[in-house]
């Protein structure tokens, strides 16, 4: 059973439950994350696929805006405490990593096609390429980074997959902004080296 299926089987959670879980996660309760993930996943997946299917290039919703929309849907405006919002952004980043990695792997498979010579349709040289491959590669390399530097890996998840700023990342992880900056610099160098090595 995939996480998605499992999430579908869960009853729709009360906004209060989510707030409670978010607070628990903020307080370091690892099980809260396990509960939150399947709640956030279908909602974010729905919003993300809608965006990926419909939006024009250049008009894509920012990750945080997307996550914020999910937050409003799941938690609601009035109950939204400042801390639970930043915790939500944190959890959402991990969910987004899963969603984007799945999406990118799917796209990459499609691009390779089924062994048939592709039909050229007058390629647009300006079209940006490689984002998909990068996402797949970063996702895989992150697993390795986690083993040697778990916090730096988290920073990458929050910043790259979650679209969070330095300060938001610091808040969500409960560390200083300087720490986030250093982790980010280290992780970027490390990942860059990993990606160019393969």
């Amino acid at each position, binding site marked *: 059973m995939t996480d998605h299926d499992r999430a579908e089987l869960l009853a729709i959670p009360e906004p209060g439950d989510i707030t409670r879980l978010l607070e628990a996660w903020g307080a370091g309760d690892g099980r809260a994350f396990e509960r939150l993930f399947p709640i956030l996943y279908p909602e974010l997946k729905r919003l993300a696929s809608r965006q990926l299917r419909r939006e024009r290039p250049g008009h894509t919703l920012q990750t945080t805006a997307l996550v914020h929309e999910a937050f409003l849907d799941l938690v609601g405006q009035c109950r939204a405490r400042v801390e639970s919002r930043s915790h939500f952004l944190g959890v959402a980043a991990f969910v987004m990593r899963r969603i984007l990695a799945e999406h*990118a792997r*799917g796209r990459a498979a499609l691009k390779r096609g089924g062994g048939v010579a592709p039909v050229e349709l007058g390629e647009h040289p300006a079209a940006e390429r490689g984002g998909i491959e990068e996402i797949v590669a970063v996702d895989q390399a992150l697993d390795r980074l986690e083993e040697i530097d778990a916090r730096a890996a988290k920073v990458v998840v929050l910043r790259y997959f979650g679209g969070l700023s330095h300060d938001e990342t610091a808040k969500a992880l409960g560390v200083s902004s300087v720490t986030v900056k250093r982790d980010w610099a280290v992780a970027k160098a490390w990942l860059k080296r990993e990606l160019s090595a393969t």
Partner: protein
Amino acid sequence: MSQASWQQVRSELLAALELTAQEQRERLAVLRAATPAVAGEVEALLAAAKESADFLEAPAWERASADTGSEAAPERVGPWRIEAEIGRGGMGTVYRAVRDDDQYQKQVAVKLVRGGMDAGFVLQRFKAERQILANLEHPNIARLVDGGVTEEGWPYFSMEYVLGQPIDKYCTTLGVRERLELFRTVCAAVQYAHQRLVIHRDLKPSNILVSADGVPKLLDFGIAKLLGADVAGSGEATATVWPLMTPEYASPEQVKGEAVTTASDVYSLGMLLYLLLARKRAYEIKTRAPEEVARVVCQQQPEKPSALTDRPLSRQLRGDLDTIVLKAIRKEPARRYQTVGELSEDLRRYLAGLPVLARGDTVAYRAGKFGRRHKAAVVVAGLLVASLLGGAGVAVRQARIVERYHLRAEKRSRDAQRLANSLVFELHDAFADLPGATQPRALLLKRASEMLDTLAADAPEDPVLAEEVAAAYHKLADVLGSQAEANLGEREAALSARRKGLAIRERLAADAPGDLSRQGRLAESHITMVGALQGLEAVEQARRALLITERLLALEPSSAADQRLWARALYAEGSALVASGDLPAAKASFEKATAAFEALLAAAPKDASRLRGVSMAHKRLAAILAKQGELPAALAHYRKVVAWDEARAAESPTGVEARYDLSVSLVDYGWALARSADQAGAIEQYQRALGIRETLVRADGGNVRARDGLASVLARLGHASIAAGRHRDALAYCQRAEETLGAQTQNRDLLPSIYQARSESYAALRRWDLALSSARTALQLGSASLASEPTNTSFGIRVAWEQLLLGRVLLGLASQPGRASGAAALRQEALAAYREAVRLATDLQAAGALPVDDLPLIDQARAGLARCERLQRSTAHTAGAAVRRR
């Protein structure tokens, strides 16, 4: 790497990142002396850090959405399940897909427009491509399979999926002769397209795939152009298309944005032939910069193909093949082969060893050719060739005779078709708006109808002819009996003609699902069927028309013709729903229809047909509002309607249609006034309508609709007069109405209505005998109508009112002094009539088919019933008392 050494690497790296390049080198040197492994790692990471300024700074989400262009691959499109993307470009994305049915796992290529591009232009091209493909059926052109709109609303179509290699790759294993044969097959496909007036404009190896069994297929008509007709519906400049082409195969005129002709495809084929023979392109264009592309394509003279090849190939190419290729790719279109057929023919001649036409027709050349040809066995071969040539001559002559015969037969059917068309379209239309022309028009149409049946039986294969026949059937039906034009009351004949026309268009639309104009004409047929049918059948036809028009609008949202068709389909749906008694649903349809027509009118405020559309839709909406008791709103609509119609009638003072429409609006307006208890106002509007209709009947006495219309307004004046208490006026109007109504009347509602009014007037004047006979006649007529159409609720309502009237008149008669003898029987009959009225009315109400203002029917019928019972009790009591007294 261990956690511990990573911590060291990490802190060394962070420290180094704060330093200048020189300081970094020094620090690394120190580190290398102590822990070389850590130093190496830090050095590598420092180098990576230098290149990672932008790295990961754009969030993954933005990267993902930029890379997809606009959308991820859909899981399914229409009936197709997407398997893989097989190409994408400026115009859209192509996927390989299969049908989900287990029965046949058929693969297709689905082409989908991508969102976010210049949507208008892309959709236009997309539509054009679909239409072009729909018209091309050739074994060497990838076939159109179906088309439609995705759930997200993007248009798509599916084509035959060609599993094969680009022609240049396929040719690598072939000899020169085989390449030429294959190339000639491609030429035949291009020539076929040219005969259908389609120029491909983007012929190149990747657009010509060859299947494993050696069959080439032409793909991608994405920037093809339909000659003569402007398919895209706009003056599409070549300049907008050229950036989409592949410059290596683009002709100078295409690059310069000049007129593109079939000679442009000849050029591209020439470049392709060059590649196939020399295995190299005539020239490589390094950049896509427009100036560079233009310079190379327009100025650079290509080498002979043989010059780019080594022996032995160069020897094969030298001479004829060099000449043929260079002639095909001349810079000036006029100096190329004028048709693809000529190019192909020259290759055939080359293959057959005959003199090629590209060469000058010099004696030396021909002699040389002859010598080579007869080198082997001069005499025998010479005789053989001569006999073959002789045989060919005979064949050619026979072919000419056969062709002439076909031409003659074809010409005859064309002539008949032209005559039928002329009868139906030209002569009929010339008569259409002339008063007094109904009879000659009918004769004309009878003849045309006979001719049409013959034609339809004869030539169903030719889509152009078939459509003309279908259109002619509809025209015929219009005149024979539609509600929308003058007619002779032959409803059945009209319906039959309409069904024939519809059947033809259904077939045409099914044959080419991607042909939007065929779909549009099918919708048109469904719409006209609505007026000719009743009940759910009519609703069904309207819904079909709506389905088609909504699809069309999704494909071409800016097309005024499609918007109009959609508005008309909504209108038709509303009409059908009204007839089947579902007023709330009908109201919703007409609300949509009014909005649609208003949008159309806003774009062309003086357009007569749009004025008519907007007025009609408002009129229908107003009628529903009035029936639902919202009279002020209804009256406001009607005032607008009358103003629009007056404007239109003023524009064409002799036009029958506009004046008739105005009179209808006046009648409806009067009806709504009557409902809001303004009888004087109602009579005033009715009299204005009466004036118009009297003029129309005087001008064209044979026009049934005009007569019906006149009778109807007279009957209404009768009813309004009764309501105003002017019963003698009412009787006079009823008299005139009955006299006006011809035997051919189509309005089965009218005569009972006249008798009903008459009966009411007589009853009010206490002329009970006359009132009773009129009431009986009214009921008889009404019951007959209901029996013929039991589901028609307005007939049911009328019969209920007639029963009520009959009961009232019977009781009135029974209460007459001196009627004592028959009174009991009359009361008994009245009781039965009231009972029937109650039964009908409550049934209708239970079915939700009793409009608000027919609700009094129930109360009145119940009250009448109660009165009967009371009367019976009291007479029984009186009779009993009399018996006891006696």
